[in-house]
């Protein structure tokens, strides 16, 4: 086989893996959008916040230590203990649930019946708030996140491909784990939505708020639940991205990539988020591999958006989305 083709195959595989990570963030968007019609721009920042909180818990950092030091002139940084990964994850999840409750109580209860674009802007405000809040709480340095996930080159794949093609593919173990986790998450979410009582209530709310209210479903509960679920997905995405590239501000920008993913896959479809993620992941890696060198590289910054833009012109509802019908 020619070298270029083999390299291309490796690029495609890595693109698939990156796509899974995009899809993880996109999942959180879809959940909230389906249940409440809110397009949650803050999903990426939620992932960042979750990852920051996780690191802070594990390292036993004192929250707001920076602020406290500045006001009182003290010199505190750490509590001096280290939490094991699992306990920290559970605690962080609790915080995300609390966050979901607060967001619902303070913001979106007051914005019921507003236009979608107003809700969208409110989530941009929320994103700014959370960004500043997270930085103030845990400091803005780049943090290392290690919850014990395997990292580095997968030797088995390296060897097998070397035996077949005479060239070992570089696949990161972490990407494999992420793929497994994403698959699990999707299956779990689908089962939850299809078979559990709360899941059914969630779908009912997504279908028609008023009808759901009239059969006795508590909108408040469902919304808090959905935001908590989105917080959970954000936490998972935050762990994966954080382990991969460190917990830092750019995490929330990577999460922006979930937007074109959604436009491709459709805003209302969970499988769409996965397929869209894979297409974007493979597409941008392949584009960078083939066209990138000709135009100066770093095309990954915009390729996804332009692809989504072109796609939108021909099919505004995305691949799997419900057709947008406008009635007067």
């Amino acid at each position, binding site marked *: 086989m020619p070298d270029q083709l083999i390299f291309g195959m490796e690029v495609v595989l890595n693109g698939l893996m990156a796509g899974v990570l995009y899809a993880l963030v996109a999942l959180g968007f879809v959940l909230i959008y389906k249940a409440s019609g809110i*397009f949650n721009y803050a999903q990426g920042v939620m992932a960042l916040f979750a990852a920051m909180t996780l690191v802070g818990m594990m390292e036993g950092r004192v929250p707001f230590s*920076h*602020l406290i030091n*500045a*006001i009182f002139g003290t010199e505190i940084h750490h509590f001096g203990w280290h939490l094991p990964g699992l306990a920290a994850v559970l605690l962080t999840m609790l915080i995300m649930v609390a966050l979901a409750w607060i967001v619902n109580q303070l*913001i979106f209860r*007051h*914005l019921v019946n*507003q236009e*979608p*674009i*107003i809700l*969208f*802007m*409110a989530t*941009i*405000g*929320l*994103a*700014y*708030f*959370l*960004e*500043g*809040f997270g*930085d*103030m709480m845990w400091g*803005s340095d780049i943090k290392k996140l290690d919850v014990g996930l395997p990292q580095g080159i997968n030797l088995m794949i390296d060897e097998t491909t070397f035996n077949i093609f005479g060239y070992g593919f570089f696949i990161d173990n972490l990407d494999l784990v992420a793929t497994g986790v994403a698959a699990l998450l999707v299956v779990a979410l689908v089962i939850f939505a299809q078979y559990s009582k709360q899941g059914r209530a969630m779908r009912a709310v997504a279908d028609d708020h008023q009808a759901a209210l009239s059969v006795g479903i508590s909108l408040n509960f469902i919304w808090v639940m959905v935001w908590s679920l989105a917080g959970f997905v954000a936490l998972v995405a935050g762990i994966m991205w954080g382990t991969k590239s460190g917990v830092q501000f750019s995490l929330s*920008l990577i999460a*922006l990539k979930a*937007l*074109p993913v*959604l*436009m491709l896959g459709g805003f209302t479809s969970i499988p769409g988020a996965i397929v869209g993620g894979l297409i974007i992941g493979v597409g941008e890696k392949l584009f960078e591999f083939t066209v990138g060198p000709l*135009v*100066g*590289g*770093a*095309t990954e*910054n*915009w390729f996804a*958006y*332009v692809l*989504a*833009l072109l796609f*939108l*012109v021909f099919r*505004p509802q995305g691949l799997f989305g419900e057709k947008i019908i*406008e009635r*007067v």
Partner: protein
Amino acid sequence: MFCREAGDFKTSYEQDNQTFPIKFDRYRYYAVLVAAFAVVPFFINDYWVNAVFLPFLIYSIAAIGLNILVGYCGQVSLGTGGFMAVGAYASYKLMTAFPEVSIFFHVILAGGVTSIVCVLFGLPSLRIKGFYLAVATLAAQFFLVWLFNRVGWFYNYSASGQITAPERSVFGVAITGAANPPWSAYLFCLVFTVAAAIIARNLTRGTVGRKWMAIRDMDIAAEIIGVNPLKAKLTAFAVSGFFVGISGALFFAVYLGAVEVGEAFGINKSFLVLFMVIIGGLGSIFGSFAGAAFLVLLPVLLKNTLVGGLGWPTDLAAHLEFIIVGALIIIFLIAEPHGLAQLWRVAKEKLRLWPFPH
């Protein structure tokens, strides 16, 4: 009371159609103009110009531009940073290619170039709406910043990848470069800001503006009563792009002097201008000024009180700024979706009846 129309009789159609129908408003407007042109330039120093006046004037133009698109025509755009970059790079290319032409025309031409680019990226708005469009404009943001970063022709193949404004003057007074007196840059920007505000105000109360508002309120109904959505949306993009381009050109040439595109015109700039529009008031020219003033002054105030007064580290003040801005956006959206401009309007209405509200 001073803000009432009682006793202010209109005897001709011209008087009836004035921009400021109430006498007090009109005189206040003249007073502000006189103060801005004839008083302020004698009293400002370098710090005030660079920290407050220039950013305020320049962001006002950008906010007016975005307000036309978002507030009047209802097309949400997250690509303002990218379009400002187009204005900046267009003015840079023009300034270096035609050094003998006055910088005044360069800035206006840069607005024209941006207007064309903006229309190009506005084309999808004919098919997609709402936040779909918002995400589509993100494509413009990221693509344009990448383009100016990577293609050497745009920054004249300079080694650092930055663009630096060459020294230019108007009527023999330096405007750009290091040696300019503070008042010259201020006056130069002020001329553009006032012109932009007057043009925008008159556009929005004329035929074009009414078409925009019809499209914003309900596009299907607007189409049925004979508004051409293609024309209305694309003119909004064109006019908006023109103003945003001018502000980008001024931001680069007069305010910063040297620009690295990702830093100066990144996605955060888009959000900043959008926030100005939301806080100031969607669909209001006065609101654009109020929003710009608010978001320019807030960091300055925070920095002076927290860093200067209390001795906090600067990064902490920056975080607090994020928190406050985010919270303010949410509070305004919940309590007063029409922003500072609406607060002002309500206050005026109250004063009109004061002290006998019934």
